[in-house]
């Protein structure tokens, strides 16, 4: 031990420790581990989709099978109305569903964090105005608002991401604001101010790192909601019809009349996939939540 530890390396060591401690405690949540394993598997499948099922799985002109075939050795989940393999589409659809879920949750949490920290930090009438706006978004039925947005804007994946992101941030904003107020009442913030720390410094260097774990948990939980909302919007026919997603597959199945024809193999797999991914994210999120907030305990 000849080198003198610098401030940075100390900070890094502390962070490494924190991560290790976090992981150790996360490991004790069995459900969280299952969720993580499931997520890793689905994410790997989605990333490897071009290798596993090939780029041409979406092609209608080169579709290999007949329309609406039942499951067989060649098509384990049967085919859709264009003769495309449903298993291939299911794997391919994971890409869109995951991408939309992640991006929309990230957008929503970003907006929520920004609004929450700013409102919590400045306080006063500014906070009141911001919080009333937040309340307005909170009482608006998110799905209705998302449908309106998706209808008004042109149909694309980005519209759906935007619609979900814009409608689901208020919860995060409220949480982050409360946490910001709690953090800012601590003595060390007062010390930082006394030492000349401005608004920006306090918000980014002291408050943000302290609300980050909360934000992380919120994101993980938000993803499952976002995926469900994406599926709902696509199912209602508001997604991009040229993109294969799980919700879109359900919508295609409905339009093809698969429900009344009893083609359960068209409807069930995307539905189950949506449920599983949402469940996996929720399990992870809850595990993170209880690691970060011991008050929640293990019983819940």
């Amino acid at each position, binding site marked *: 031990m000849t080198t003198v530890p610098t401030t940075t390396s100390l900070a890094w060591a502390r962070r490494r420790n924190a991560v290790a401690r976090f992981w150790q405690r996360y490991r004790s949540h069995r459900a969280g581990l299952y969720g993580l394993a499931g997520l890793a598997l689905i994410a790997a499948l989605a990333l490897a989709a071009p290798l596993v099922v090939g780029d041409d799985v979406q092609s209608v002109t080169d579709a290999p099978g007949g329309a609406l075939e039942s499951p067989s050795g060649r098509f384990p989940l049967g085919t859709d109305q264009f003769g495309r393999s449903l298993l291939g589409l299911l794997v391919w659809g994971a890409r869109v569903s995951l991408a939309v879920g992640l991006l929309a949750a990230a957008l929503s949490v970003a907006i929520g964090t920004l609004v929450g920290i700013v409102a919590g930090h400045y306080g006063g009438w500014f906070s009141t105005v911001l919080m009333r706006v937040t309340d307005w978004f909170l009482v608006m039925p998110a799905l209705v608002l998302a449908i309106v947005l998706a209808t008004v804007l042109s149909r694309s994946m980005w519209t759906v991401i935007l619609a979900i992101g814009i409608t689901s941030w208020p919860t995060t904003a409220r949480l982050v604001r409360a946490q910001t107020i709690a953090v800012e*009442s601590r003595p060390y913030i007062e010390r930082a101010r006394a030492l000349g720390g401005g608004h920006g410094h306090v918000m980014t260097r002291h408050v943000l790192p302290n609300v980050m774990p909360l934000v992380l948990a919120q994101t993980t939980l938000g993803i499952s909601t976002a995926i469900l909302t994406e599926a709902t919007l696509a199912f209602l026919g508001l997604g991009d019809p*040229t993109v294969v997603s799980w919700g879109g597959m359900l919508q295609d199945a409905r339009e093809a009349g698969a429900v009344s024809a009893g083609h359960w193999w068209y409807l069930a797999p995307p539905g189950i996939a949506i449920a599983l991914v949402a469940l996996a994210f929720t399990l992870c999120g809850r595990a993170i939540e209880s690691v970060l907030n011991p008050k929640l305990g293990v019983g819940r």
Partner: protein
Amino acid sequence: MVIKVTPRPPRTRPLIRLFLASGVAASALVAVPAQAAHAQPATDDSKDGKGGKKVLTIAVSQSIDSLSPFLAQRLTSTTVHRLAYEYLTNYGPKDGRPIPGFATAWAPSPDKLTWTYTIRTDSTWSDGTQATAEDAAWTFNKMMTDPNAATANGSFTANFKKVTAPDPRTLVIELKKPQATMTALDVPIVPKHVWEKVGDFSKFNNDQSFPIVGNGPFVVTDFKVDQYLKLTPNKKFWRGAPKFDELVLKYYKDNDAAVAALRKGEVSFVPNLTPAQAASLKNAENIKVNDAPGRRFFALATNPGARSKDGKTFGSGHRALLDPAVRKALFLSVDRRTIVDKVFQGHAVEGEGYIPPRFGSYFWKPAPTQKLTHDPAKAAQILDQAGYKKDGTGRRTGKDGKQLDFRILCHATDPNDKAVGKYLQEWWGKLGIGLKVDCLDNVSDPWAKGDYDLAFDGWSVNPDPDYVLSIHTCGALPATPKDTGATDNFICDRQFDELYARQSVEYDAAKRADLVKRMQSRLYDTGYMNVMVYPNAVEAYRTDQISSITTMPEDGGNLWGQDGYWSWWSAVPAGEGGTGAGGGSSSSAGVVVGIGAAVVAAVAAGLFLMLRRRSTADDRE
């Protein structure tokens, strides 16, 4: 990290929020999937045999725009008017030729400008008043003098000079110039003594007082927007009263729900089936699937440069589409056979001319030398020759050096548009042309503004082709860019217009048919439109509720949306033994319920997780 928690009062707020959230989310999320499961009738009188009343229930999805014959344009509304009112002439169920309706005989004067109709004496309004020529004269005069009354059918009376009823049995119509559609005037005749009290015809929707006075085979007795429309037979109808005791148009916004209701016997008839639904219903007990040649064509339309009568051009149509070579290349790379086989799964006929083959006398096919058969290689060659070369990325560039990218306007509610859109994307992609499928709920606005490159287009064709031809004449263009014209696709072609003018004054059926065929040939050659397929009418009815019904044409025709009242007027209820109709639900109905339950369960699970998160969120605050 430690979170400081201020003690909170008992959690009342989260409970309220939880309740609200679950209510809103549950109703919003569950509404659609659950429809299939709880498609129970509000009133349980739709099963036949109940109280001895024979009810024929038809599942419909299209909303009624208006019950006023002067405003109604949608198929559901005009079908209701066919049932509730008489028209001067009707179309025979056998071959669609004009047959007596409200008029028993008609004849033009030698100069072709005066038509005299003999009105029947055995037709009475449902309130007991005798229906006379005076009612018909009043109806036409109203349409000629009040622009608000000419909204729906004004095209028929635009050329009328004078309409009189010299006596209750005679109607005389004087024309400005000859008019070929005089035996195909699709104008419901309304009772003068009821309608002359109406003030503003643009606002009166005829849906306030029931029963609605009419003289057709049925009388409209009740109507709730997007719920149901009820009709009872007109016992005094001159052709004979309908056999069913009641006819109900019942709304199912989800076609799968309608099919499930058909399986359970809650409805007697469902139109517009998808191929998968038709295939599964074919094996069902007591259900007959009727797959008949349709009245519609399904076409690709290109924006020929939107313009108005005052010579102004507007809209944002792609300039490259003004080049006939580009349009030809696009159409050449459309494989119509594949669309019939894959998208319609055989429930359609490959497109050729403009008018569907069902209307035999007007049906026209392109000559082999004229026909644009599927030939992607030739399409690529045409584009190469016309100077649209491929760039380094394999995409073709236009004259302005930009890559060729088109938009196509698609009806978000029509699965066929979306499906064909997918094929077009790939076919034109191989050609080096990009395509963006713009699916909208309301395509009329961008369409009327000319803000489209290509569009999916389709019309139901009447036995008399005048109307579907008129929408491609220069006369149908909007007056100014701000107006809306009757034009379908802004086509304005001098040759086509000349032929249109000639056919509209031609009383000789054979000569007129020949002119109509030449018009179609011209329309084909202008290359602004390409008919891809003629979709079949695929519909199903319960044979244990309807024992016989007349299709139109009688030999292998359709039932819903006929040019006449034949199907519902002629429908004969099944014998008394048909009371046990409810028991016929098959295993797939169980699957439907199962799937519905699974969806509801998944939604509930998601909701539960969401709410759990929210409740803990409140703890953390």
